[in-house]
């Protein structure tokens, strides 16, 4: 560990990558929603309009956590407060 600043930036990049992991779990949730909606539409085609709009709302709700992960990753990379603190600390 010769350069503490490089260490902080490297850790920030790893943290951003970890934050993007919840995209995988979000996708699982969205896949479950879509699969259930398709099943319901296949069972009851006459209710497909209301099922579709409910499905979109549910997808958006499930997507929120994935978006939060993306925002955390972006903040880690471009607006990381730790890097500024570290630069101030190093002088």
């Amino acid at each position, binding site marked *: 560990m010769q350069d503490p600043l490089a260490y902080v930036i490297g850790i920030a990049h790893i943290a951003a990558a970890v934050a993007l992991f919840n995209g995988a779990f979000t996708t699982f949730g969205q896949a479950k929603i879509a699969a259930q909606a398709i099943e319901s539409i296949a069972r009851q085609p006459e209710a497909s309009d209301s099922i579709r*709009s409910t499905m*979109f*709302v549910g997808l*958006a709700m499930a*997507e*929120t956590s994935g*978006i*939060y992960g*993306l*925002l955390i990753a*972006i903040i880690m990379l*471009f607006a990381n407060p730790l890097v500024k603190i570290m630069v101030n600390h190093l002088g």
Partner: protein
Amino acid sequence: MDLNIANLWVINVGGVEIWITETIFNTWFIMLFLIVLAIIARIKLRNFKVIPKGFQNVVETIIEIFDNFATSSLGKKLSYIAPWFFMVFMFLLSSALFSVIGIRAPTADWATTFALALASLLLMFFMGLRHRKGSYLKSFFEPHFIFFPLNLIGELAKPVSLSFRLFGNMLSGTIILTLYYSLTPFFVQIGIPVFLHAFFDVIFGALQTYIFVILSLMYIKGAAD
């Protein structure tokens, strides 16, 4: 297209710096476009016919689709709020569609989406107080007095999640297209980005616009009904 929001001009008003960023410029550009469109529609519809034809047909179809959508999700009593959400719908949709031609979407800036989400929240409070009066205020203290902070945080988290959802989606599209344009050689930048634009700007933009509007409508219905 860039990751950062460019700062175009700085105006000094009495020692206070006002930054005219790319977002503000593009917002005003889209507003100008929508206002001109509205004025053209108004002039064209001056001689309003009972049996619609041509241009009037198109305008009536658009308005009717949105009115049916608002009425089906809000109910007849509350559907007088629909014009505001038609404006939001048109603004979000056109800001997503204009990013196809290289204008950075104003919704890829958190300030724009948070302003719109805050307007939805204020509208929700207003509609709740107007239609349910005391019982709306009482719903903050359900099921017991102790739950008031929890309910308040739940209400205040609504605009945050609403704005972050739209912002994150539009920003992710912008980032992916910026990466594509900056990482690939010139000869693959003709033709192929059309599909990326169609996916990230048109489809995601339209879907997120729909979701923003329908979630706002559902919040208002939950507060006022």
